[in-house]
């Protein structure tokens, strides 16, 4: 293993990465974070001199899709870069150590890097039955989470599970799973939602935190603005078809073949904040809309409970049967129309009889 206090640069040089590649990485990462060339040199300086930040990566109730995404990061490449850039001291899914040996690392990091390490959390904690539904290493996950968060510098919530609860917190939420900000209330939390989040977004956030030793700028939901300040729809390459009024109306129609906008097929791009339409997936190869399917809004809070993936707005279930907003409006309109028509008829009768009465009086 490497010495903990080595800088990132020392580590990768030892692995045979050239200085040229290192600088290239700095510029690429700076660009992907939307920062200028001046920042690239600042980043290079930081990575050359600062000891690597220890990261503890915990897994709660989750499906490991965040890890799967993370290890596919292309810029920076996870193998060469991130695993040496940070000092990933504990990650029970991909670490070599196991059992007591592994769990010891947690205590060791807690003591040695008190207040300095970053706690990255994938998945969330079920609170039902005293946390019995997630029980890694013989303790309820919620205990492990609280104890590791206590001495951390900051907490990263990876993915929709940790950020918003995701599927395990979807109705009826039998295990009472809650996003981690419901458990940890006294530490800065940064949310990186998505099911999973985009690999480059994950590594980008980590790089930023390492380089500048602070959290990136966050929005009101605590998501980093550099990746979550725009909706899929704002940068979607099918947007010209949206503006033109050209929509896919059926999955197998002419419009679908021509790559028209998926709005009418329930694309949730207009209501989803994420970087898919700019960063894309798998080294920029594609993203769902490019493959012909609408966005399902996986990075939005409660996306499992917002009705069909194929309707743009949530159906309203309060009336027993599922209705969309327009059906309810039309229903109200019909009832109202009938009531008003009846009312108008009675009014007319009254008007006529009043006139007659008046005439009779006048006579």
């Amino acid at each position, binding site marked *: 293993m490497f010495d903990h206090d080595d800088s990132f640069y020392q580590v990768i040089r030892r692995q045979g990465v050239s200085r040229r590649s290192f600088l290239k990485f700095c510029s690429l990462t700076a660009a992907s974070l939307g920062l200028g060339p001046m920042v690239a040199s600042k980043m290079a300086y930081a990575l050359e001199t600062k000891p690597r930040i220890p990261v503890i990566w915990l897994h709660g109730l989750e499906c490991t899709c965040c890890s799967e995404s993370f290890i596919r990061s292309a810029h920076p490449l996870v193998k060469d870069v991130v695993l040496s850039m940070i000092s990933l001291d504990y990650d029970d899914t991909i670490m070599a150590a196991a059992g007591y040996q592994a769990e010891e690392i947690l205590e060791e990091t807690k003591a040695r890097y008190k207040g300095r390490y970053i706690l990255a959390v994938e998945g969330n904690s079920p609170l039902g039955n005293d946390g019995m539904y997630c029980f890694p290493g013989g303790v309820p996950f919620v205990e492990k989470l609280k104890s590791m968060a206590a001495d951390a510098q900051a907490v990263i919530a990876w993915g929709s599970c940790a950020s918003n609860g995701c599927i395990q917190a979807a109705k009826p939420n039998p295990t009472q799973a809650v996003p981690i900000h419901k458990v940890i209330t006294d530490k800065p939390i940064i949310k990186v939602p998505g099911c999973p989040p985009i690999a480059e977004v994950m590594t980008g956030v980590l790089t930023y935190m390492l380089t500048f030793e602070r959290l990136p700028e966050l929005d009101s939901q605590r998501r980093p603005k550099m990746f979550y300040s725009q909706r899929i729809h704002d940068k979607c390459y099918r947007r010209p078809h949206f503006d*033109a*009024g050209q929509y896919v109306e059926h999955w197998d129609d002419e419009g679908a073949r021509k790559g028209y906008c998926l709005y009418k097929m329930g694309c949730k791009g207009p209501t989803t904040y994420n970087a898919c339409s700019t960063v894309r997936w798998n080294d920029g190869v594609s993203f769902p809309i490019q493959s012909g399917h609408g966005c399902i809004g996986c990075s939005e809070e409660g996306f499992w409970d917002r009705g069909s993936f194929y309707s743009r707005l949530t159906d309203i279930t309060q009336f027993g049967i599922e209705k969309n*907003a327009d059906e309810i409006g039309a229903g109200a309109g019909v009832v109202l129309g009938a009531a008003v028509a009846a009312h108008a008829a009675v009014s007319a009768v009254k008007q006529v009889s009043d006139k007659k009465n008046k005439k009779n009086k006048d006579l």
Partner: protein
Amino acid sequence: MTLNYTSDESARELRSRAIARASIYVFEAPVRLWHWVNALAIVVLMGSGYLIGSPLPSMPGEASAIFTTGIIRFVHFSAGYILTVALLGRLYWAVVGNVHSRQLFRLPLTSLRWWSEVLFELKWYLFLERVPKKYVGHNPLAHLMMVSMFLTTLVFMIGTGFALYSEGAGYDSWQHLLFGWIVTLAGNSERLHLLHHLGLWMMGIFVFLHVYAAIREDIMSRQNLISTIINGERAFKDDEP
């Protein structure tokens, strides 16, 4: 004196004129102008808003040559701005205009007398009263609906509308500065769209009832209505109190 817009106040206002069958100048020009600008903007907003939610069938041809949804959205946003500026003008007029210009912005909720007339008016609508009362301004039930159903929905639509607008305009826009908190309050952009969309139906119900009530009352009440909102003069059909 604070006004409660009740029928005895109307009688007093009428009595203060020498001739009993007076026509009173109720809605000043800016109020009338606002009414029709507002009505037009809302009709346009409802139409274009509906088409944003359920777009027209697809257009053939190159995307570079057509801009159908773009134009519909542009019309929606322009009408939204006109609606908002008109409301600000109307608010200003409520400060400098006559007493009836303020009726839309205050409800005499603490006046028992006013409430009893709301009830009376309700009975009149339900055919339980034979003879309606006279009102110089809006009758109490109309007044209640104007504020609770129209003004509230209007403010709600402007708030949610600009909040939606801020999502496209970005974090450094004034729309985000002024209305961004509404996105946060709604919790999620999809819910915000849904709320704004439901507002369409709320507004539609108001317009429907309002136009029906205006026509019906024009015929059946003891004062004219439709010409009042056109030329400002309220005329009464009889001399009885």
